[in-house]
Structures are given as C-alpha cells and as structure tokens.
C-alpha cells in the first residue's frame, strides 16, 4: 500500500477519533471526572441514528442535531442529580459511580436494542484520485467530525456559557464568587460531553457498524487520546485524535492490525509517565 494512502486513512480515522474524545476530554478537564459512561453515550447516539434511519427514513445528518440534543438532556440530568453530589470526591468514588451508571445504561441498551451490530448504509461510492481510494461516507464522516469540533471550539471561545465553563475550570471558587452557578455549569459541561458523544456516535454509525460491545473500545480510545493530546482543550483532543489515527494506521500496516490498538495503549502509558500533561496540554491541572 502507498504511504500517502496510509497517512490519509490515518487522518480520516483520526478526525473521527477526535470527535469521540472531545466530550470526554472536556468533562475530565473541567469536572475532574473520568466519565465511564462516554462509550455508552456514543453507542446510544449511533443506535438512535440507525433506528431513525431504519424505521422513519430520516437522513442521519438531519437526525444528528436532535439525537445529540437528546443526549445533552440525558447528560444534564445525570450530572445535575447524581454526579454533582460527589463531584469533589476522590477519583475512586466518581469513577466507580459513573461505572455503575454505565452498567445500568449498558444493560438497558442490550435489553431494549439488543447487541446486534448496526450500520447506516448510505452507499455513496468511492472517490478515486490517482491510485488513492477514499470511500465517500468516510470523507463525509470526517467532514462532520471536523465541523462538530470547530463548533465546540467556537462555543467555548465566544459564547457566554463557554466562557463560564472555562472560568469554572480555572478556579471553581473564584467563579462562584463572580456569580456563576457552578452546579448548573457542571451539568451543562457534562451535557455537552454527552452531546458530542451522541454526535460522534451518529457519525460513526454512517462509517462503521456500531454495537454495544464497542463501548469499552470507544472509552479506551478516549483515554488514549486525552493522554496524548492533553486535557480539557479542543485543539488538544484534535491533535491527540489525529495522532492516534495516524499511529494506528501506520502500526496496522507495519506490525499488523491486531497489534495496532496495543501500540496506542503502550504509547499512552509511556506518555503518562514522561509527560502526563500531554503534547498540547497545560501543566497544573491535576
């Protein structure tokens, strides 16, 4: 295979990965919570997109905003009524709590939707440039993922709520004194995390089959990307995502696809030890 093709595949995959990890990174960076629910949110988004397409014939791109908003509401409620109560507790407590919630959501999904792999088949064909092959649905997925990332970046930069989130992240106490309702901002942040997960799931269901068995895989990717890129910043997640996409693509070609995931994890462990704040991370956010 051509080296250009490998790199291109890596970038396409990496943009999708960035979309997966961005919500997770935001929640970890701002709330200091490792959100074990993230993988299930992604699958839920993917499944809802599939059902909307299968039973009501709704185009996935049209369905995406609605599905993502549904997940936003779910995330807001979960954070406001459950996770907020223990948000300042040590990591063991918050991680265990989100894992417990994840077990409930996972079980509900397997019972009501079953674990069948599902995919929205759009049949858009393949784009050939010279001897490069690019499936159009992947390119579409990449475009959507990048748009979503840019949207989140803008929201964090210019909107009032985005500024409030950044303020809470920098100093919770000072933000409270400035009249920011921290609990509400936390819930919004978690909601945005779920929103991005749902949107990522919708995009993924157009490109790859999704099933509940993949929740752990997506969660693992989010871990790796966050550590590579650094926490809580949109560009960090984007860099981390594309880096992981490239690494997996190159490793898959050189040492075999079954070892590609291992390489990502090992790299993450090495990075954790030598540079825990990530390539693009800011030091000092424990």
């Amino acid at each position, binding site marked *: 295979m051509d080296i250009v093709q490998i790199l291109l595949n890596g970038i396409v995959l990496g943009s999708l990965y960035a979309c997966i990890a961005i919500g997770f990174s935001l929640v970890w960076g701002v709330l200091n919570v490792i959100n074990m629910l993230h993988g299930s949110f992604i699958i839920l988004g993917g499944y809802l997109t599939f059902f909307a397409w299968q039973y009501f014939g709704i185009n996935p791109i049209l369905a995406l905003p609605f599905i993502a908003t549904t997940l936003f509401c779910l995330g807001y409620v979960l954070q406001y009524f459950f996770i907020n109560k223990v948000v300042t507790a040590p990591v063991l407590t918050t991680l265990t709590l989100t894992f417990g919630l994840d077990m*409930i959501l996972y079980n509900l999904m397997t019972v009501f939707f079953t674990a069948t792999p599902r995919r929205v088949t759009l049949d858009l064909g393949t784009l050939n440039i010279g001897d490069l092959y690019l499936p159009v649905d992947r390119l579409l997925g990449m475009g959507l993922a990048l748009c979503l990332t840019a949207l989140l970046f803008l929201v964090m930069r210019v909107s009032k709520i985005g500024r409030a989130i950044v303020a809470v992240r920098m100093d919770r106490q000072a933000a409270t004194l400035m009249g920011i309702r921290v609990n509400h901002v936390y819930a919004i942040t978690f909601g945005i995390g779920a929103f991005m997960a749902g949107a990522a799931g919708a995009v993924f269901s157009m490109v790859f089959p999704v099933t509940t068995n993949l929740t752990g895989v997506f969660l693992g990717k989010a871990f790796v990307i966050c550590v590579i890129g650094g926490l809580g910043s949109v560009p960090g997640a984007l860099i981390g995502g594309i880096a992981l996409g490239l690494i997996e693509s190159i490793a898959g070609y050189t040492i075999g696809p*079954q070892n590609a*995931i291992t390489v990502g994890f090992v790299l993450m462990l090495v990075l*954790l030890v030598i540079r825990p704040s990530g390539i693009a991370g800011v030091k000092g956010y424990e």
Partner: protein
Amino acid sequence: MMKSLLHYVALVLWLALIASTPLFADNYTIRIAISLTMFSAMAVSWNFIGGFTGYPSFSTAAFFGIGCYVGAIAQRNGVPLVLAWVLASVFVAVFAALLGAIILRLKGHYFAIGSIAIVEVTRLITSSWGSLTGGGDGLNVPLLQGNPQEVASFVLYVMLSILVLAFCTSIYVDRSKLGFALKCISQNEDAANMVGVNTTVYKIIAYTLSAVFCGTVGAVYASWIGYIDPTDSFSILLTVKVPVMVLLGGAGTVFGPIVGAGAFILLEEVFWANFLEWNRAILGLIIVFLIFFLPNGLLKLDYNRLFKRLINKKARTPRTMDGTS
C-alpha cells in the same frame, strides 16, 4: 478491644461456615463458597493499595489474568500443580513490583487511567500472542484429579488458605511500621515524604502485596475451571468489582474487604438467580446506592443510631416530623 474481639469471633465463625460447606451442602453451594473466598482474598489484597495507601488502582484483573495464564502455561509444560501456582504468584509479584516502580509516579486520575490501561494492554498482548497463550481461542488447563465433589472441596480449601494468608498479612501490615507509612501516604504523600517516609518503596510494596494474592487466586481459578480465555481473565468488570466490594465493606479497615466481598457475592448470586437479564443493571444500582448512601462502607455505619432511629420511627406516629433522630 471488646468490639474488635467480637469482629474476630464473627470472622472465625464465618470462615468456619464456609469451610464446612462440603460436609453438608451440594456442589452449587460449594461453588458459591469458592467464589466467596476467591473474591474475599482479592478484596483483601486490593485493600493494601486502595484502602491503606489510598491509590485508586484498577489493575486487579491484570494480576488475576496473568496469574491464570502463567499457572496454565506452566502446567501445560509439565510443572507440577502446586509449583505452578507458586510460580504464577512469584511472576505476578515481580511484574507488579517492576510495573509499580513506573506507574506509581502517577497520582489521582492519571494513576486510575494508567492502571485500567494495564488491564487492556495485558489483555491485548495475551490475545495477540497466539503461539504462547492460544490467543482468542483460549487455553485448556489440565484438569484436577478426582470427582467433582472432591475437586470442589480441594479448591475451596486452597482458596480459603490464600484468604487466610492474605488476611494475616493484612493484620500484620495494619499493625506494623509499613501500615503506618501507608496511612501517612494516604493522608498526605508530600508531607510523608518530607518527614522521611520512603514513599516510593512503601508504595511499591503495597502494590506488590495487592498483586501477589490475585496472581495465586488466578492460577488456582484456572486449574479449577480448566479453561481460560483473554476476555474472561482480563475483564474490566472484575477490575471494578473488587474495589466496589472493598468500598462496600469499608476501605482501609482489616475486616471491611471480607464483609464487603461477602455481601456483594451473596447479593450477586440472588440477582443472577432471579433477574438474569437485568443483573448488570442491578449491580450498577448497587454501586450507585453504595456511593450515595454508604460512602464509608457497611462497617463504619453507626448501627446503634440506625437501630434507635428505626425504633423511634415505629414508636412515634408517622405524621410528626420532629427530627429527633
């Protein structure tokens, strides 16, 4: 002193009850007794790093799985049974000590993520190293000699001895200088380091202790079940279940892990039997309940107060909301 004596008596009675199951119960009950001892032993060992030292370690499943595989591979290559178990324990201990030296530099969230990643990495390597581990097909382990009843009681007594050994180590650690140092680290690591506690060495010891018994349990489990595969041996569910058991009983206490593991396994058994499809959601509900209503575990509940409150509620008419409780 009285209270702690009472605890010891209760524990001895509980262990005696478990040990006597082969005398009166059927194989199904013995199987429950084995998983009780197995998880109690793992909970007691997790307590070294998670309870005493306060490090949120989620790598139990990695140690368990490596124990399974080392034991199984050793036995397949003709190493005698008990020696294979010892070999598995030693291997896991060395692995944990080396790993601990690297990963224990991390703190808080990063340590949690790193320790989960260890489970994933070990699982992935086991799956892809087909020539040694059989890959995704799993591995058959030589079966234990004897009829099912004999095998079950043998495994039960081996697991029980591991539990007792882990528990005695836990008592020793709790009372020794090591335990004191670990509690200092748990409260404030920088301060402990400042006053001359060699935090690195103590953390590595705690991490190794938390691993070694899991390795032994894994090796014995592999011999008992007779077949292992990467998904079962290195399961994320196991790696979270064990800390949940300790939290349920009371982290950082000597008896907590055994109480928690006992309560958890018995609850789980009831739910498996009655709500097969919903068991995962119910376990999730238990976790949520635990975090909100039992943050310090069953052992640290003030039972006298709880009891009095119940009595008060019954004695008074329900319409008064006087808050005397």
